[in-house]
Structures are given as C-alpha cells and as structure tokens.
C-alpha cells in the first residue's frame, strides 16, 4: 500500500448518499459497483417481502432488495425514477432498490458518530454510524446487516 493511499484511508472516505423513503442514507463508495435505473424484477416465490425479485445484470442473476421495506418503511412504489444501487459485500453482489441517489461526499473519518443505542427502532441495527452534513443527518448503512443472507438462514 502506498503512503498516499494509507493517508487517504486514515483521513477521508467517500460516501454515496441516497434517499430511502424520507430518510437520507450513505454507503462507502468502495462497496458500490454501479448504479442503474429500475427495471421490473422477476419475483421469487416464498421470498421475504423485502426481496423484490431478480433482474438480469448482463447475464448474471442479481437479487434486488427493497431497502425501504428492509428498513421497516414499507414497500417502495416503483416508478422510472427509482434507482438500483449494485453493491458488493465481499461474498455476494446485491441490488438495492432506493428512491434516488443524491450525492458523493468526501468526509473525514473522525466526523463519523456512533449511533446512540435505542432499541425501539428495529432498523437501528442497519445503521453503523451517523454524520452531520449541512445540518442534515445522514445514516451510514451497515450493509452486511441489511442484506438478507444472515436473517434468511434461520428461516
């Protein structure tokens, strides 16, 4: 690893911010593969409600997760402005259905705040940290927790 990379890692990360429901979320841009428009997904029988189905991503079968539904905000009504963020989590690639992509932010790691522990929200576990940008609170999505694999294993 070069010095420059090392410094960048220590200091800054880039985040992709997006709208889910009325809330603003962000993801480390390194885990984002691509952003594509909404296309109708083929539903999977007996799948949990937040799994919208599968789409054809250049010859591979990509699972689409309705992020709003996953975060407990109800099913996303899809229209042409919806966006699929294709993310990769080390072992699998999944598409996240969100309302819109907003911005790319470069932020200092030290500005990240740990979320307070509040057990009433069941979407709590999906937020790894918080950040304040221009008076707006942005939630950093805990990707591994939001993806269905672990929760499905019990099912």
């Amino acid at each position, binding site marked *: 690893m070069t010095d420059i990379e090392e410094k960048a890692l220590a200091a800054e990360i880039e985040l992709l911010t997006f709208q889910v429901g009325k809330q603003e979320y962000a993801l480390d841009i390194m885990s984002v593969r691509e952003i594509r428009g909404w296309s109708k997904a*083929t539903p999977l*029988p007996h799948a949990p409600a937040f799994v919208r189905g599968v789409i054809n991503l250049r*010859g591979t*079968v990509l699972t689409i997760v309705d992020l709003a539904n996953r975060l407990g905000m109800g099913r996303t009504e899809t229209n042409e402005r919806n966006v699929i963020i294709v993310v990769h989590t080390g072992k*699998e690639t999944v598409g996240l259905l969100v309302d819109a992509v907003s911005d790319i932010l470069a932020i200092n790691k030290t500005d990240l705040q740990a979320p307070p522990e509040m057990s009433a929200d069941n979407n709590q576990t999906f937020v790894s940290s918080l950040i304040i940008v221009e008076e707006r609170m942005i939630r950093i999505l805990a990707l591994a927790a939001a993806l269905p694999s672990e929760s*499905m*294993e019990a*099912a």
Partner: protein
Amino acid sequence: MSDEDDPMIEIKASFFVECEELLESLQDGLQIMDDGGADDEIINVVFRAVHSIKGGAGAFGLDQLVRFAHQFESVLDRVRSGAIIADRNAISVFFRSGDILADLVRSARDEAVADEERTQSVLKELETILGHDSNDVVEDEIDDFQPMTLSMDLGLHISNDEVLDTPEQFTTDAPAFEDGYTINFVPDSSLYVSGNEPLHLLRLLREMGQLNVTCDTSEIPSLADIDVEKSYLSWTIQLTTDEDQDAVREVFDFVADLCTLTINGPESSGPMAALPPTLPTLPPLTQQNAPPPGEEPSATATKDLGTLDTLSDSTHLLGSATKPEAISSALPVPAKSGAPEISKSVKPRPTVRVDLERIDRLVNLVGELVINQAMISQSVQEADLSTNSAVSDGLDEFMQLTRDIQDSVMMIRAQPVKSLFQRMSRIIRESSAMIGKSVRLKTEGDATEVDKTVIERLADPLTHMIRNAVDHGVESPSDRLAAGKSEEGIVTLSAGHRSGRVIIEVADDGAGINRPRVLQIAVEKGLVPENVQLSDSEIDNLLFMPGFSTASEVSDLSGRGVGMDVVKSAILALGGRVTIKSNPGNGTTFTISLPLTLAVLDGMVIDVAQQTLVVPLNTITETLTLAEDDIRALGPLTNVIKVRDTFVPLLDLGAELGYRTPLDSYTGAIVLLIAREDGSHAALVVDAIQDQRQVVIKGLQDTFGRVPGVAAATILGDGKIALILDPVDVVANADGRTRSVQPNLQLAG
C-alpha cells in the same frame, strides 16, 4: 521462480496423473479377480500397474512408494507365475495394498506424510503371503530401470487361444538385432544436471520401433564411494526401426554434448525399409522367448502358463543386470519385466488433458450463445418475416448448430462415474473392516457419464450413504446367518440414465429400516409429536430430518452427528433429489436422481399469474386442457382430475408459488402432467404455454438459501429473467388448495 523453470516439476505432475490412471486400472483388475473372472491378462494388468508406479516413483526418488510398490509387485509376480494362488484372502490384502499404494502416491504428490503404521501392517501381510518365497525378492531389488524392452502397442489383438493353437509354428524366425541400430549411450553427469532424463529419450526411441535396452550398472561403485552427483549408468540400446540414422540421432539432439553416444547401424533406410518394423499378421510367438521385431511384447508376456518356467528364467537374467553379456546371449528377451512397463492390453485412445477452467469458459460462452440465439429468434419473430424467408431458414440451421455445439461441449464435461465408484469400494472395505462386518460392493453401470462437477460434489454424500449402509443397513454376521442370509452383506451401487436424469442407487441387503424404532427415536428427540400417525414412507423420510441418528450407540463410523439431512441438502444443492425405499428383512435402497448437466436444459416456457416460468421438459409427461367433468372435488379445498382411468391431484401453480389465490373455476385451464420419481403424477395448472426451447441455467445466488420449488433461473430472449421450476419439488411441497372457500378448514402443515 526456479520451480517453474524446472522441467521435472511438470514431468512429475504428469507422473502423478498417470499414477491415478494406473491405480484405476489396478482397482479394476482386482475387482475382476475378486469376482472370480481373473485370467492371466488381468493379473498382468494389475502387475503392470504396480510395476509402472514403482518405476516412475523410482525415477523421482520416492523411496517409500518404491519400497511398498516393490513388495506388492513381488507378490503379484508370484501370483502371475502361479506360485501363489490368489484366494479371497489374498485379494483382500491386494485391495488394501492398492489403497495404501494410492495413499502413498497421494502423499508423495501432496508432499504429505503417509500413515506409516498402516503401510507397515499391510507390508507385513504381503510378506506373509510371499512366505518363504521372499528370498528372490532381494534379488529383484535392483531391477527397477534395468534391462527392459520398451515397446509400443501395435494394436495387436490376438487371443490366447489363437496362439495356443499354433505354438510351434513361429519359433524359428527371431531375427537378431544386427539389422537395426546398436546405440551406446553414456550420459555425462551434466545431462542430469540440465534436467534431462534418459527414460524420456528411451521413450522417444520406442516410438520409432522395436527396442531392446540394456543398462550397464557395472560402473556403480560401492555405496560408501558413491557420488550422487555423478553418472554411473550407461545404456546399450538395440533398435529396430525403418527410420534412418539421422532420425535416430535426432532423438539425442538435445543431449548430444552431454553424453558419449555411438550409433552403429545402417546409414540409409534401405535395408530396414525392406524389413517391416511391425508384423501385425504374425501371431506372437512366445514359447521360445524369441519375438520377431515389432512383436508385441505385452502379448508375449501375457501368454500361457506353459511358458512360465522359461519366463522366470529370463526374469532372472534380467534381474541380474550387472551381467550384460548374459543378457545379450539370451537375446532377445523382451518378454518379462520390461514389456509390461509401457504396453497396455488395450490400445489407449489419444486424449488431451485440458484445464477444467478452459472448458468452463467454453460452457459459459455456449450458454451466452444460446441466449443470444433466443434473442435473435425473438427479433425475427417480431420482424414478422414470412416463415420460409432466408433469414428463418438460416436461423433454423443456426439453432441446430447451437444445439450440436451445446451437446458436444457437455460431453467434454461428462465423465464416467467409475472413479467415484472405485472410491466407494474403498470406503466399503475400510468401514466394514472397522466394525467387523463382511460387506462387498457390487457396482452396476459405472460407465454412466455424469457432469464432472456433479461427480465431484457427489463424493461426500455418497461416502456418507455407503457408510450408513455398512453401519446401519447390513446386519452383523451372526444376525445375517440367523436370518438365513449369507454372512457377507452386499451393498449395490448402481448408476444409469432415466428420463433425462442420472439415477444413482445405493442399496443394501440388510434388515431394512426398523420403522418402530425410527419412530420411537424421532419421538424421543422431539422431531415428531407423540402418538402421531405416519405412513411407512413418512417414517422412512424421518431419516432425513436434521438431528436424527439411528445408531443407538455412536459408532466410529457414522453417527457423528452429521446425518442423512446433510446428504439430502448436498444433493438438493445439485438440483437432485433423494428418495428412500425399504423392505423389512430385505434391505434399504436410497435413490439419488440428478440432472444430467448443470448448464442447459430443454424447457417449456409457460405463463402463470403474469409471470413467465420455465418447466424442465423431462418432467412433463403431457399437457391437457381440462373439461368440466374432468375435475372432481376431493376434500373441502382440493380437487383431483381424471386422466384416463386414474385420478391425479390438481395443483394451481400460481397459488402454490404464492402469486395468486386459487381460481374460481378450472374449467378450460391448461395443466401440465408432472411425473414424480415414484411414478405417480400431479397436474399443475398454468395460464398459457408459450414455447418449448433450450434455456441456459443460471444459478440463483445463495442469498436466500434455496428457494422452494425453484431450481434455477434463465434469461429469456427479451433479456428478462425467468425462473426455472423444479416441478417435482413444487408438487412435493404443495398444499394442494384449488378452492378458495373455507380457509379456516385449512390443513395444518
């Protein structure tokens, strides 16, 4: 880095690949011997396999392997000469020796440590068989790459009988080697330093014609004085070929300045051309140890027992390689120890070893081709061209070609299940020995070809099933005798193709499933509620439940906590199914049904509840349109339909997949009749049938685990994804509701 430059690495790798093949033919041979079908040829095959492994191992300095192979070979040699009778007992030792040999080969390959204790114990057993005869063995010790005839298979197929009928006829015409070349080859030590290997030169020469090689070991000093870096060996090679001297010299091109080489023989090809190098019409002569040039030495070696005395003599001569003059006086003596080195009883078909990755890439590309072809078909259809236009004709041809390419590529991946079955026979031997039962494996249909990936992923579940059969299936010897069966249990492993799938069966002739006991255990473990009423097959299927193990005591062998549920999920992951059939007193049969390939299938494209789905064609027996009086109510929520004289459960595919609630009326609906593995049928209601075509199987991500009722996905001509159904699974998990009334009467489960 230097590793990659070392040619020995590559040669060694190919030696290990060869070893695998040799071990396989060894297993085969032993199996035939075990079945009582052994003739001299079989014993020779076995002997040759061991000998070749030993030879190669010697070249690579794999001492442990050489030592073991040598002992094994010595015993087999005695068997070959008739000095030892291979009874059941001996053969079982041979099997174990084969296992050890395989272990040693593998541990040499992986540079791991082999189980010395087991090796020693089997070595002892071999020694016991060898008995007092073993004096000779010491003498044989040095015959490793000693005088031998390297010969190639000339495609000679003459049965023993033929030869025996005419034994005297050809005893005189053994030409000496004056007509060929005499090559004296003395390598410098620099030859070895540069990674050359005399064996490979000899092999090259072998390809030119009949070869007789004598190794001069007289230069070898005593062990104390030996300098391992020095070259002590030299070879005298007698070659009969129609190639001219330049061609022969060419063989040594790369080592010309690394050795002292003299070649004596005809300068031109003239006289040799007159003498045909191969005489395929000449039946091999054997009695006098004097084959004509081009004679097939393996045929010679595999002759009748009548010549054994003479042959033993020649072995003796060959064995004492320190006296090359003795050999030349006895020339030609290619028969015994040299010939089996290379020649095989059956001429191998030429093959190419290809990296599996390249094949997978090809398979993927063909998959893309199929999708692409579907897309073109769709656009042509949409363009509304007349059906006999040039485009449509060309497209038809294109489709045919695609299909042919498809089939050919799949054939590359297909492999006979034989290697898998051989591994299982070892499992049987080891596991039955461990628990003191006598069990033998019968295999059927081991030439059945299955996709390589399937074979690999089948090994673990099959091992488990075999162990189960030995441990739980077959009774103890005393129980067997009491039940009027022979003491030896039989586990049958069979493979075959049935309706587009591969069926593998593991059957034992044991006591069958003890159903009351199974039920009792299931209740004890809380897997099923007490007092539950279960049918026989439901009880049998309890074995597949997680956490079930019938062995009341945990034995060494199975019952380690991983049960049949692991087997079942492994097979499900392959797109397969496993069923169980048991007959009290007569044994248990597990049937695994697997898809032929993991890449493509012929499917029927159907619509149901606005979704496009693909149903594998081989599961559909027929399609029907329902008339009103075909449908009969069965329960409050279920219907059956009458198909000819039988009643078949009616299932609404849309409802079963959760896409919609059951329809009000099914009159006029289209149904697919699905064949289940047990021969029964079920009818699936669909909305429309679109097409029948080849689709490429795309795996669903593991994100959800397995989606029930869905085997995989595919990409249609319009780029949309369609799910490929596993209709048998849909049927198996169906709740069967085809009436939307009275939901409160819904059955539990």
